[in-house]
């Protein structure tokens, strides 16, 4: 195997990852690469394994076989062969290199917007309070919430909370940002402000892997789109190709048809 020495050009390299919850195969030999600066979007019907795949990338979920590498380093296990789980300390250090934004925001309710961002900076990155505060204010400014630094999550709208969630993730300067249906829990009128922030990050060259149901956004912002069905990758390609109504992939065609029917 040339794997060990092969410095893959892909920043994220998912190979043959499989996972079962009991008798249900949620991931079937999924392979997927994300290059530095790329924005890759995963679409597919619910239950197709999109979120599970994302959660495997920063090892919030373990997987049964296969390998996930970020920057050439195996994520959850010491090496893919022995599948010996990394120590919790190692895992924490690995996770600090991947940012994640959640569907339900998951802000720490006892900390202010700035406090949410500062926690990782001080405890994980070892920054001083003052440095962390400065970084928090910088990123809150980037997501348009400079004036909300001292607000608690409960005092923010859903869209504002999610923007803090994004700021919390990117402030850690991760190698890759994972976005898990980040607009699904938002009222329709708040979706735009969150997507605008993501688009900005994409323009800055942030590498992203995202799961979304916002097809228009996926079409505009993605380098490539991955279509998942039944735990496997069913189609990969540039947005124009994947979202074309006349695709030859039957499952994808059915998914898009159903999607159009319910959204337009």
């Amino acid at each position, binding site marked *: 195997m040339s794997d060990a020495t092969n410095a893959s050009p892909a920043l994220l390299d998912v190979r043959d990852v499989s996972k079962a919850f009991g008798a249900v195969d949620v991931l079937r030999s999924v392979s997927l690469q994300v290059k530095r600066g790329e924005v890759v979007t995963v679409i597919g019907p619910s239950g197709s394994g999109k979120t599970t795949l994302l959660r495997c990338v*920063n090892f*919030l979920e373990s997987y049964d076989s296969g390998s996930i590498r970020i920057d050439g380093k195996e994520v959850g296990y010491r090496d893919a062969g022995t599948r010996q789980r990394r120590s*919790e*300390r190692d*895992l*924490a*250090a*690995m*996770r*600090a*290199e*991947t*940012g*994640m934004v*959640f569907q*339900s925001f*998951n*802000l*720490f*309710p*006892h*900390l202010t917007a700035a406090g949410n961002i500062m*926690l*990782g900076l001080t*405890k*994980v990155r070892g920054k001083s309070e003052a440095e962390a505060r400065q970084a928090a204010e910088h990123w809150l400014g980037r997501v348009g919430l400079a004036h909300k630094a001292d607000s*608690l*999550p*409960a005092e923010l709208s859903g869209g504002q909370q999610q923007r803090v*969630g994004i700021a*919390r*993730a990117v402030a*850690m300067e991760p190698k890759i940002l994972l976005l898990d249906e980040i607009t699904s829990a938002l009222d329709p009128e708040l979706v735009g402000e969150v997507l605008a922030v993501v688009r900005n990050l994409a323009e800055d060259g942030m590498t992203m892997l995202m799961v979304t149901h916002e097809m228009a956004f996926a079409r505009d912002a993605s380098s490539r789109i991955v279509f998942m069905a039944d735990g496997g990758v069913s189609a990969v390609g540039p947005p124009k190709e994947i979202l074309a109504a006349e695709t030859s992939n039957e499952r994808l065609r059915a998914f898009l048809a159903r999607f159009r029917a319910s959204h337009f």
Partner: protein
Amino acid sequence: MGYALNFNLIWRHFDKLWGGLLLSLELAVISIAIGTVIGLVLAVWYVSAGRTVRAIIAAYVEFIRNVPLILLVYLVFYGLPTVVDLAYSAPTSFVLTLSVYSGAYLVEVFRSGLEAVPRGQLDAGKAIGLTPWQRLIHVRLPTMLRITLPALSNTFISLFKDTSIASVISVPELTFGAQWINFNTFRIVEVYLVTTAMYLLTGYILLFGLRLVERRFRAAR
């Protein structure tokens, strides 16, 4: 109605009640402090431990919750020293008992609070790279505290009242003071009226303080 209330004798011996109240508070504060440490440590251990440890902690909780406190007080004060070679005063014995007793109740309060912390928050803690210990200190415990504060207040007040049981081993706390005055003056109605008022008032003051703390924390919900 041949009975005329006369509080003069009560006021003459009021130092018994006042000193008793102070001792009651002291017993409560020390026992609750120790019990809180026991409860926190065991609750954190419980939610992260395997089946054996869980069974042992559950057995401790069940044992304490199903035995009357007064029996435990007798057991520790009269029983224990005859079995093991230990000598301790009645107040020490009671603090020991109430600590172990309150620990069992507080394990339950803290455990249910820890289990009620939304998984998403723990995921968020993991995702920014916090170690398990950091997640416990900076994410799980603060949220747990906010969830459990109302139940915690109730338990604290209840434990404060439980200090009255110390009177059965002659610890001169508030109830014991009341009994002493009763035996020496026979003004049973007056002395228990005053004592009740003292328990009530202290309970209200404690509750008021705890509610203030709750409100401070609830703001962040």
